[in-house]
């Protein structure tokens, strides 16, 4: 744009006396575009919310989306009611986050708070799976699996049932208010709120015994926090899926921004095959051009791909932040292509590289296995494998130990040195266990457990209840065997019944 240069030149002219100041101002104001200029076909960068009325569509991807919707929502709503036998003391819910007792149950897995690193592992797996999906087939997460997409899809389905498909809905929205319109709108919002309420209700069931909580909720006996969370999630579901919809993807979600930096030319994205589609034109015009042997595209510019889009983008402009790659435009375009007798998949899952290759006459290729995907898969396998290994081999007996900070050691009347420790015993089994102590690395040392009443028969086994921990104070006294100021020692606890052991290392200190 030469405007700046013009002003500089003009300014120069003015100084040289060739132009007066008023003239310069007039000149400068002229260079500011005053609207109505040539309209570029790039969309506005920012705009006030445009209502989107996505049209119903049938086809392969719509069917996949329905199946995913039913399966994922089915799991979400019903999983809390699945039972799992953990014996008389354990909760019988298959998936349960037990905040009060600090336990997480997932079928046969029980996670204690100190094993929360499994969550870290799951997050790593989730991120890598997301990246792998993206490297293979673009925004699979956004298009099919994201809760925002799934619930918005459900809310759109309800909306279409009540207010009709795109055309009918738009006409009614533009029309003046009538009793029928009010009734339909009211019914829609009531149904939305019911789904939202059920969504919030299902959420809290993961945090307490579901059948009991349902009964308590119905009789207003449930804890206030349960009602509070149902309320919060009802509001967020209703707002996000009913009102904010694509705005969540466009303005709130970080993934589209990250995704754009992670994708490459070999990833299968929902793509308008512009090599086939352009130049676009009406059916008749392009048919005529084709007959004359002139270039004519398959795109008939019917805008069906835009009308079915839940985020209102035009896929023909290429991948964009707004495109969640749900594939509904593929279904819409295929329907049209069948009608006009042209090959389907003008819009399809394809790679940027293939578009380029076809343009230069090369056959398309599918490069699924490449450094990027192999590395993501390797990380997933590594992290997943490590997690499975640690989960399968983890101990059900544990001991941890902390040396007293003050005093570091105690000299006794007979000159012996004693160290104090705090010991925590972990019993992750659902039976009471009896544990005995031994100290390694300090021959002849004796162990005392002050404040613990032990059975009179001299059996020094400590009782730890099922699925519980027990903290004890442990005193180790050395009878003149110690060498040096610090001696490495280990505490070994042994399950009297099974012979299982657990050990914890620490030091024995002296003067």
């Amino acid at each position, binding site marked *: 744009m030469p*405007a700046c240069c013009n*002003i500089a030149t003009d300014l120069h002219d003015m100084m040289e006396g060739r132009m007066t100041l008023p003239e310069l*101002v007039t000149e400068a*104001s002229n260079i500011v575009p*005053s609207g109505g200029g040539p309209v570029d076909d790039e969309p*506005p960068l*920012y705009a006030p919310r445009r209502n989107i009325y996505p049209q119903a569509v049938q086809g392969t991807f719509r069917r996949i989306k329905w199946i995913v919707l039913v399966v994922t929502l089915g799991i979400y709503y019903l999983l809390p009611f699945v039972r799992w036998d953990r014996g008389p003391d354990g909760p019988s819910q298959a998936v349960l986050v037990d905040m009060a007792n600090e336990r997480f149950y997932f079928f046969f897995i029980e996670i204690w708070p100190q094993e929360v690193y499994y969550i870290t592992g799951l997050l790593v797996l989730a991120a890598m799976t997301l990246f792998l999906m993206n490297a293979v087939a673009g925004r699979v997460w956004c298009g099919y699996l994201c809760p925002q997409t799934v619930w918005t899809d459900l809310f759109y389905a309800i909306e279409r049932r009540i207010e009709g498909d795109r055309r009918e809905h738009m006409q009614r929205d533009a029309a003046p208010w009538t009793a029928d319109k009010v009734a339909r709108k009211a019914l829609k919002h009531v149904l939305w709120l019911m789904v939202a309420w059920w969504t919030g209700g299902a959420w809290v069931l993961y945090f307490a015994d579901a059948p009991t909580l349902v009964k308590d909720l119905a009789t207003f006996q449930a804890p206030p926090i349960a009602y509070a969370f149902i309320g919060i999630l009802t509001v967020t579901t209703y707002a996000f899926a009913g009102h904010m919809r694509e705005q969540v993807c466009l303005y709130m979600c970080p993934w589209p921004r990250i995704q754009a930096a992670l994708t490459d030319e070999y990833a299968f994205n929902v793509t308008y095959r512009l090599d086939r589609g352009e130049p676009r034109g009406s059916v008749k015009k392009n048919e005529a051009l084709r007959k004359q042997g002139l270039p004519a595209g398959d795109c008939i510019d019917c805008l069906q791909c835009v009308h079915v889009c839940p985020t209102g983008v035009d896929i023909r402009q290429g991948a964009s932040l707004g495109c969640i790659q749900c594939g509904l435009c593929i279904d819409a375009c295929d329907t049209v292509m069948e009608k006009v007798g042209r090959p389907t998949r003008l819009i399809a899952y394809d790679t940027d590289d293939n578009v380029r290759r076809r343009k230069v006459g090369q056959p398309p290729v599918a490069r699924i296995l490449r450094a990027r995907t192999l590395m993501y898969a390797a990380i997933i396998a590594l992290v997943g494998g490590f997690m499975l290994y640690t989960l399968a081999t983890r101990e059900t007996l544990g001991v941890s130990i902390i040396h007293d900070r003050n005093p570091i050691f105690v000299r006794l*009347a007979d000159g012996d040195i*004693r160290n104090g420790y705090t010991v925590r015993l972990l019993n992750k089994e659902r039976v009471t266990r009896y544990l005995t102590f031994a100290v390694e690395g300090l021959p002849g040392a004796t162990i005392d457990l002050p404040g613990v009443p032990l059975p009179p028969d001299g059996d020094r086994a400590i009782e730890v209840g099922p699925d519980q921990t027990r903290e004890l*104070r442990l005193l180790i006294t050395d009878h003149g065997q110690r060498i040096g100021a610090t001696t490495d020692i280990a505490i070994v606890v042994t399950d009297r019944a099974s012979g299982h052991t657990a050990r914890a290392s620490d030091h024995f200190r002296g003067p």
Partner: protein
Amino acid sequence: MASERPHVDAKTHVATTGHEWDGIEELNTPLPRWWLWLFYATIVWSVGYWIVYPTWPMISSYTAGLFGWSSRAAVNEQLERLVAQRAPMMNKLAQASVAEIAADPQLADFARALSKPAFAENCAPCHGAGGGGAKGYPNLNDDDWLWGGKLDDIALTIRHGIRAADDKTRQGSMPAFGRDGILKPQEISAAADYVRSLSKLPTPGSADLALGKKVFADNCAVCHGEAGKGNRELGAPDLTDAIWLYSPDKAVIAEGIANGRGGLMPAWASRLDDTTIKALAVYVHSFGGGEKDTGK
């Protein structure tokens, strides 16, 4: 440059603010409407805050708000809840004897938990955070007790102190044998060597142990016993064991003989309630050096 009619940018169709620098214009991009409504909602919400919560400072007070909420009242409420929650155990603790507390594992755990902050606040300044003691301040972890290490002895010491301003406090002090002219310097030196020999610490070849033994028998044995085993009635330490309240150095022992000793333990009955004192006795007893009540 700004004209009455807003300029519209050709590229984005968005009105500009009319500002322009070197051909670069500032778009007057509208905010997403939902964002704007959220913003308005927060403003409305804040007005609600002004009304129901303490908000505006006045000259000598503040607007209290309709809810009458105050952070002080909230703390008091939480404290009351805590007191109510602890009441059953506190009542049990108040009625039990020290021995009964120690015998009941649940009550003993509760007493120890209750004692931790009380110990840190009242005892730790002299005895150390873990009761490890310091020069002149007994180590509460070891098995050597000046005034007795049973539960009741410890409770008694805490309640009435040692050499404290309390009717029931226990007295007994180490006289200043040197300062008061009872012993000559060489007698003190010999006695110090002799005391070290009682606990089998090395003494120099020049030490006059015979004189030391005579001085000890004439002056020290009254309280510390013929064999130097000490006397708990008087708080006289056992001089034959490995534990030294001050130091096993000869110079420090001699200083003690010359100038006397008499550390002070305050009487806590006037500052701490009886329940806390009992709990503290159980806590200190469980450090590891506590003596059993049986087999006296």
